[in-house]
């Protein structure tokens, strides 16, 4: 498999002096294209911090971070924003959709923000994704009128909009009932299989983790398994 990303000796500290907290302590991780991986570990182990750094939303204190052969360790905010837009998708625990926009408008946002307008092509792609997520009847619904499971499926569609190589999902099913959680996971697995998109899913749920082909366990700021 083609290497997708690699982090080496990743360190992240918060605060300074006596209040300094070292969340990541020299973490190493490599992922390849097409992986479906679960990120496991207890609360405070550094899972969320790792996802945030991999998502280019935060710089590490030290260590290196490369993805698609691009060194992201010290890249500028502008470069990271552009890189994130093109190559990384996010699914958050609480869907985090834009509440004043419809499902379709939320989905096309990553493309529209890059192109400066909502093109017909982008809208077609957005509609296709929503249909694939089983939301054909909800395309023009304001997101406030959708159920929790529907919102999370919109969030998955939005994450896939720019055909990213990597989708980072932070507890994507943590706020859903069992049936909705299963539905979301089935969609993720389907997209991973059909399109080769790499997924890294942070979860506490062992059943969800069992659906992934790789389990990455983080403990005390290091990959332990």
């Amino acid at each position, binding site marked *: 498999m083609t290497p997708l990303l690699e982090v080496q000796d990743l360190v992240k500290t918060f605060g300074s002096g006596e209040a300094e907290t070292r969340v990541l302590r020299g973490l190493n991780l490599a992922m390849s294209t097409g992986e479906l991986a679960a990120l496991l570990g207890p609360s405070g182990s550094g899972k969320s911090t790792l996802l*945030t750094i991999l*998502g280019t*939303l*935060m710089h590490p204190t030290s260590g290196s971070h490369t993805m698609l052969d691009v060194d992201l360790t010290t890249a500028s*905010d*502008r470069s990271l*924003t*552009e890189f*994130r*837009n*093109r190559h990384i998708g*996010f699914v*958050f625990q609480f869907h*985090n*959709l*834009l*509440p*004043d*926009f419809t499902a379709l408008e939320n989905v096309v*946002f*990553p493309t*529209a*923000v*890059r*192109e*400066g*307008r*909502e093109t017909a092509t982008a809208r077609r792609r957005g509609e296709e994704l929503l249909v694939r997520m089983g939301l054909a009847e909800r395309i023009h619904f304001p997101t406030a009128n959708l159920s929790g499971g529907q919102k999370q499926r919109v969030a998955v569609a*939005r994450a896939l909009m*720019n055909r990213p190589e990597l989708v980072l999902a932070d507890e994507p099913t943590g706020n859903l009932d069992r049936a909705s959680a299963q539905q979301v996971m089935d969609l993720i697995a389907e997209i991973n299989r059909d399109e080769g998109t790499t997924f890294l899913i942070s979860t506490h749920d062992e059943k969800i983790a069992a659906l992934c082909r790789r389990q990455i366990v983080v403990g005390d700021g290091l990959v332990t398994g």
Partner: protein
Amino acid sequence: MLYALKIATRYLTASKAQTALLVFGVAIGVFIFIFMSALIGGLAEFIMARTAGDMAHITIQAEAVDPALLLPHEGRTVLLVQEATSQATAVLKDTPALVPLIEAIPGVIGISPQINGSGFLTRGAQVMQVSINGLEPGKESVIANLASYITEGTANLGAGGVLLGKTLVDDMDLALGQTVRLQSSSGVDELLTITGVYEMGSGGPDRRQAYVSLATARTLFKLPQGVTRVEIKLADLYAADTIAPRIKALTGLDAKSWTEQAAQLLEALRAQAQTGYILKSFALLTIIIGVASALLLSTYRRRPEIGIMRAMGAGRWFVMVVFVSQGALIGLMGGLFGAAAGYGVLLAFPGRTSFAPGQSGLPIDITQGAYGLAIILTTLGAILASILPARAAARLDPVTAIGQ
């Protein structure tokens, strides 16, 4: 840019009540700005119309001849005593030839050759000192609009007629149609009939002025030819400073602009205009503070959404444009509504036509509302006001913002 504008518009329409309140607040500020402009500008026009409106805009006065010493004074000290003489002693002789020349100058709308001097008005045992103005019949209202001030009789000056102010008539217990004796400072007296009574509303002219025909004034001041003064009215009184030198160059006479004699009035008007600028600046400042605080609140409320947008690949510049666009839209809408409301309310006032002497009305001029300026300044002010909240939004850490 277009997409940022769409997001901004959606944010504004999503919170309709808040946006409406904000636009209303801005509109009130713009309304005040426009009303102040119309009031301050109108007041200036009103003052000008009521003062300079009845004044000659350019005056050509005969220059008094310097006294000539007839005795040699080498080795002696000469005590020169010049008795106060009537103005009629200084005469402009060539006016019949000059009047057509002056009338041909663009901007000149009226010209009034006059013979002015002083005298006494007598009725029985009562005697009052008066200024005598000899005007050409038919030109009584060229400078001061005498016809509009007439309360009894007529403004037309015929032979043997005199127009007197109401205060003078009341003080001397006179009445229209009565005969009075007018004696000039040249010692000539005439029996004249009161053919009109006017009331200008100011003490001086109403108490001390007597208007007679130019022919009567010639007799009173023993001036068979020439006049003592030529008064000129212009279409635009502010053009006096440029037209007066042209008249001087054309005629060789000392033509003086009204501004030379009304420096204090101009100074007062300038001070009034500056007061207006200060008041309008306060209105604009209120708009800026209002928009800035509302957008800061909006920024705070939308922190998680800003975080999401940043996570989805929106740059800091995009976020800034979204919030600055909101400010611009609020400013533009508030400006348009405020300007429309201002114009609507100002329509209720009679406007410039009521500024003319003799008319009544509030000094508010609808044409001086500065509507375009108000809209432009408000939009610019609102953009300025939105920069601080927009910068705050753009600088938000997406991780922190999403977590909220």
